[in-house]
């Protein structure tokens, strides 16, 4: 397609990626598959964050809030009202977008740093609010359990997660290659100049936010069904925020592909550490690596890859 400046190597790489993901179950055992399922969901959360915060620099420290809304909506609809999953999930996506819009949209008007604080406060608010407001619906601090599963078995669960992740990734990647993506990048570099170029930054940010919220809600809803149960702490927690942000950073913010790499890297590292450090202490190792890497190469793995590729091209010429 001319509009997106797609080259043959893009198509090849995407085809290879998709093939690799789909062939996984043939290559690894169930345990690894379950790890990969989690990685796929984290990758989706990371892509969602990346579309807004990775590009525009408006750090959403409250992103788990959106994921949680998606999860709780589908949980409440399926368990309390008996609504079938085919309906509850799309509704969850819409509710996430609407809820995010109402609460976070006014925040986009204020400067970047304050946006981060407000979103963090919103997430904390959710953590406090959800257990107490209508506990008959939300299940209070214990949450909702026995959500209907969408698939049986690790392999099917994997195909669902991977398929979803690939669809989301492709969509996001294509969208960011349009001029919209360029405009969002530009906002992250110099928002005033974007206004000075005749573009309405509020509208651009709002749209990015909507897409981001939609993906977060979608991934959150499916994830809830995969887990089978939801508690406030498992969604409205700063540790989840941490995992998302670090995944994006290590992979490379703003690139869509970077967050996917980062998510997989992170999940596998954490799994490898599990026998030695079963709880949140693992974040110490992970966080330290992330911090050091961020201080020295804030653009993440993608940038390192790009440098290697251009060096290789250079030496060939």
């Amino acid at each position: 397609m001319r509009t997106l400046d797609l080259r043959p190597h893009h198509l090849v790489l995407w085809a290879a990626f998709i093939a690799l993901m789909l062939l996984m179950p043939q290559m690894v055992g169930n345990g690894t598959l379950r790890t990969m399922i989690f990685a796929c969901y984290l990758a989706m959360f990371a892509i969602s964050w990346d579309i807004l915060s990775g590009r525009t620099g408006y750090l959403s420290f409250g992103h788990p809030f959106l994921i949680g809304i998606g999860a709780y909506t589908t949980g409440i609809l399926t368990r309390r009202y008996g609504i079938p999953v085919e309906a509850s999930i799309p509704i969850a996506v819409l509710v996430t977008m609407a809820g995010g819009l109402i609460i976070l949209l006014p925040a986009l008007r204020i400067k970047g740093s304050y946006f981060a604080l407000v979103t963090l406060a919103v997430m904390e608010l959710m953590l406090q609010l959800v257990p107490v407001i209508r506990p008959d619906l939300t299940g209070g601090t214990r949450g909702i359990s026995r959500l209907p599963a969408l698939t049986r078995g690790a392999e099917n669960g994997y195909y669902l997660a991977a398929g979803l992740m690939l669809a989301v990734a492709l969509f996001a990647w294509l969208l960011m290659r349009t001029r919209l993506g360029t405009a969002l990048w530009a906002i992250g570099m110099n928002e005033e100049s974007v206004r000075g170029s005749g573009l309405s930054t509020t509208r651009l940010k709002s749209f990015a936010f909507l897409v981001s919220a939609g993906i977060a809600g979608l991934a959150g809803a499916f994830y809830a069904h995969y887990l089978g149960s939801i508690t406030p702490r498992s969604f409205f927690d700063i540790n989840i925020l941490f995992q998302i942000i670090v995944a994006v950073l290590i992979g490379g913010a703003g690139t869509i592909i970077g967050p996917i790499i980062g998510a997989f890297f992170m999940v596998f590292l954490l799994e490898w550490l599990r026998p030695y450090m079963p709880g949140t202490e693992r974040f110490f190792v992970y966080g330290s690596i992330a911090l050091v890497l961020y201080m020295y190469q804030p653009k993440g793995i993608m940038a390192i890859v790009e440098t290697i590729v251009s060096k290789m091209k250079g030496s060939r010429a």
Partner: protein
Amino acid sequence: MMQIIVQGLLLSGLYALIAMGFMLIFSIGRTLNLAYGAYIMVGGYIYFWLSQQLGMPKIVGFAGAVMVGALMGFLKHRLIVKPLKGDAVAVEISTLILAIIMQSVMVLVFGDASKILLPIIPGVVTVAGAQLTYNILAATVMSWIIIAALYAFVRGTHTGRAMQAVSMDEKGAAISGVDPDKINMITWAISGALGAAGGVFFASYTQLSPQMWVAPVIISIAIVIVGGIGSIIGTLIVAHIIGFLEVSIVALWAPELRGVFTMLLIIGVLVMRPQGLFGREEH
């Protein structure tokens, strides 16, 4: 009624102390430094370790916490803030990661479960018809002493005024002969010390857990922003508003809703009046 007023005053004093520490660094950098929460948490844990696990006198525990806080502040300035040279996004992210790292260190060393700190001073006293624990009273009194000392320091001493100058205009201060780097270093160390002190008191007020820092950090940042960056009086006023609000909600409505209203207030004010209520005008 008296109970509410007294409790409100006490909690406000605590919040004011924590917010002061944050105000110092925010007025230089203007970026969100979530790792401030690490001082609060680490301060509480160091005190716990020294006073309860090692059995040292409480004053030693307190001093230890404060010193570790100051050291953390100094290191953070040196290793993270300075190299990043004011890139707001980078600072925000790095401090978040740092805060989580510190949190996980605490989990590694002390375990995940919440811990209850023994009261600094055991016993209960009745003041003007309201019942208070000596513990909280002591914490508040100490908070106010520290705040007063800070105020005197900033207004009275040469270093203090240099700190004010740097917070208003770093280049201008440099031209006037102040060494901004040294001042920043001192400011960060003091900020760490205050945070740690606040952490000790806060932990004895509630509980000690690796996640305890999130809410106080949000509250102190919000207090500083709403109260007006750099305005000590503004910070004090807003701290009291929030302190009284929380206490009233707990007493008059429902204890579970305590955090909810604070957050709602913070979100509402930030969105509608991001320049705060009392601060200097910023272009």
